[in-house]
């Protein structure tokens, strides 16, 4: 099958074009570096099926980070390249176009974000550009789908240009200069309200207070949406509709191993969190407790991403992140990680050096709880009062900073400065936001429910053979002596490797004090990532660095657990 690769500078809309072409959905946002890996999809051109590959963005064919290396690898497989070009910044985008044309691959250019050129007073003579470059050029607005049909119909016209010979960097810029002179005219334009908002949100004096406000309001909205979804939709759904069904099933099944596995202990009232049945806990934890917050979080994150606010936040916080051995772009793994650590770990690829990636990934695993885990913490600590939740988060923020400072000192390597494009603000479309939220929610359900089922299954089997009871006794001296926690909480730590949300749920039946719960949930975050994140980290960092990182995690967890015991439990 013929391979068509989408290449272009970061944040020009390749992923949106990809979604339009293939109908497959990939996450697209308004900041450079959203796509860090390739996606493949299929489409039919005429009677022939072709493979479409969405590559990470790159400014040139000389990669400066891991995501750009992926792009270069994809190019080597390409039969045809669709070069997606940002029409509002033609000059810079043409550099990559020329580099592509110097290679022996047929190219077609999609002149994307075409609608914005009119607002910005930019006039491009695309016919003339087509003549000069000798390849087809199609203006597109991928967000609305404008021009995509023409693009598809002209893919077969993609060709190489024999006259464009490999040249020096200077040579290319000279060529671009003369091209721009012939095809582009820019009119002077006045400061618009959008520019003013942009200035206000990036200048420190106004930007920092605004950033604090935006982050605070975002989390407040997440909680608001999450709580209301639970209170008005999910809890009634489970209590009023699902409970009678399960109770009926319980009576029909009668006592036995199957009942324990599916529902939990026979003869007591069903507790959806504690009963540890696949159809009770296995379903209620991901759907009834976590899902509402996942929906709320990804809804807000999508808004932040699509407006183009993230790079501005990265600029404002660069100072802090630089002290922690990263630079401002480290905010992206952190924010994505608050949803789920897996995409968070993947996004460390946009950082340039090993040192930055190591620190960012290790901090993610240590101090960034995913939404699933946070939702459970809200669920079990919430009833005791907000101060306990605050204590958990205060400890984690403190750790993020302190561990970052320490690693910056001791991890070898360079941490280069920030160099980041700031995209223009865009008004996010509700339809796109909802679709994106849905894609991520679906992904969560697909990833979370099998693991939860597996977790519940493992727990049930191990309980029925008495292994977990034995383990609880064995771990008791360690958990009790070092951290002031009951021995069974050690079992929850082990289950935490499968799913952290389930592990937090397992703490509930142990009858711990709120302070003990604070210690246990904090340690659950720090000591090790879940298996899905672990697998990604091994791939991203390599075995050797992952072992070092894991040693730091375990060491930190033990130290922090012990200190918390002394400070909070006073024993």
């Amino acid at each position, binding site marked *: 099958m013929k391979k068509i690769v989408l290449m272009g500078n970061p944040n020009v809309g390749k992923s949106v074009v990809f979604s339009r072409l293939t109908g497959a959905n990939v996450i697209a946002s308004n900041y450079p570096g959203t796509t860090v890996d390739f996606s493949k999809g299929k489409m039919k051109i005429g009677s022939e099926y072709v493979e479409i590959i969405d590559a990470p963005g790159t400014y040139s064919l000389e990669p400066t980070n891991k995501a750009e290396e992926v792009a270069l690898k994809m190019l080597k497989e390409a039969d045809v390249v669709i070069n997606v070009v940002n029409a*509002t*910044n033609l000059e*810079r985008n043409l550099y*990559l176009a020329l580099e592509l044309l110097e290679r022996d691959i047929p190219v077609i250019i999609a002149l994307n974000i075409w609608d914005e050129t009119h607002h910005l007073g930019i006039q491009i003579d695309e016919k003339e550009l087509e003549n000069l470059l000798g390849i087809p050029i199609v203006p597109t607005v991928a967000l609305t789908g404008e021009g995509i049909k023409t693009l598809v119909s002209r893919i077969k016209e993609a060709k190489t240009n024999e006259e464009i010979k490999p040249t020096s960097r200077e040579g290319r810029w000279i060529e671009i200069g003369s091209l721009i002179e012939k095809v582009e005219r820019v009119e002077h334009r006045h400061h618009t309200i959008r520019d003013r908002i942009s*200035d206000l949100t990036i200048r420190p004096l106004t930007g920092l207070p605004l950033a604090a406000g935006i982050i605070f309001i975002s989390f407040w909205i997440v909680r608001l949406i999450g709580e209301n979804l639970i209170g008005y939709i999910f809890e009634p759904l489970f209590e009023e509709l699902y409970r009678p069904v399960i109770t009926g099933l319980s009576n029909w099944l009668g006592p036995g191993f199957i009942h324990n596995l599916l529902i939990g202990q026979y003869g007591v009232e069903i507790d959806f969190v504690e009963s540890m049945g696949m159809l009770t806990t296995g379903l209620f934890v991901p759907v009834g407790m976590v899902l509402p917050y996942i929906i709320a979080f990804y809804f807000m994150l999508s808004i932040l991403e699509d407006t183009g606010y993230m790079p501005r936040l990265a600029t404002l916080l*660069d100072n802090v992140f630089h002290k922690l051995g990263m630079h401002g772009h480290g905010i992206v793994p952190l924010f994505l990680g608050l949803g789920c650590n897996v995409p968070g770990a993947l996004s460390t690829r946009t950082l340039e050096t090993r040192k930055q990636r190591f620190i960012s990934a290790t901090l993610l695993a240590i101090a960034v709880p995913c939404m699933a885990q946070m939702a459970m913490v809200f669920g079990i600590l919430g009833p005791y009062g907000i101060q306990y939740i605050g204590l958990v988060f205060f400890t984690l923020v403190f750790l993020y900073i302190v561990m970052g400072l320490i690693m910056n000192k001791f991890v070898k390597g360079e941490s280069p400065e920030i160099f*980041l494009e*700031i995209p223009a603000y865009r008004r996010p479309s509700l339809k796109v936001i909802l679709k994106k939220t849905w894609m991520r929610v679906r992904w969560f359900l697909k990833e979370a429910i099998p693991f939860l089922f597996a977790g519940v299954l493992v727990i049930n089997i191990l309980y029925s053979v008495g292994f977990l009871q034995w383990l609880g006794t064995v771990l008791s001296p360690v958990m009790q002596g070092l951290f002031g926690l009951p021995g069974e909480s050690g079992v929850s730590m082990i289950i935490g490797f499968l799913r952290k949300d389930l592990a937090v749920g397992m703490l509930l039946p142990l009858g711990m004090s709120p302070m003990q719960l604070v210690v246990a949930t904090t340690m659950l975050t720090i000591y090790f990532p879940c298996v899905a994140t672990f697998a990604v980290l091994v791939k991203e960092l390599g075995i050797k660095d992952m072992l070092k990182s894991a040693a730091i995690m375990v060491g930190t967890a033990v130290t922090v657990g012990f200190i918390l015991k002394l400070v909070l439990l006073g024993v």
Partner: protein
Amino acid sequence: MHWADVLADKLVKENRKHVLATGITPSGPIHIGNMREILTTDAVYRSLTDKGVDADLIYVADDYDPLRKVYPYLPKSYEKYVGKPISEIPCPCGDHKSYADHYLTSFLNSLKEIGVKPLVYRASEMYKNGDYKESIQIALENVDKIREIIEKISKRNKKAKITVIHGGHGLQHRLNSMGIRNGKEIKVVSKQPFRGPLTVEICGCQMTLGRGMARKIMVDVLQ
């Protein structure tokens, strides 16, 4: 009262010896504007000596400044000297010791003709003798204060044109491929405190870059 006398009166009150310094970079043919620089200082100097105050008038030729670009009156072959001190660049006509001397000599001759007699120093010699050592130390230690003063007086947010980008090939290429290139107009949009990153605008496109990188981008401020 003449403005030079007003200034001189202020200096008289300080009751000490004064040094009045002036100077230009002899990077091109002299023009009438070059005279303004030294004549205003000379006026104050004369007023001071008339009042019987001990004062020196010194003229520092900034001949250790780099050649910023190949000016229209220079042959193309001067491309290779861009960024080098003008005292180390060959004279365009071949009759003088250096590029700097070529332009400086005619300037100093003109001064003689109109009777302005400063003590002439050459920055290139003073740098090499180590005369600036202590001052450089002080300047480096107070770099942020100095920057603040310059920004306050010159008013920030002016447009500028990129003249030279220092740094290795890798950095040059990275900056170039994001649109930061010689000859481009550039504007500072924001500066983060504590030597944090700058956000600049080029060709209607904004980007954030660290101070270290920003420091390697040389610009000419456009009026």
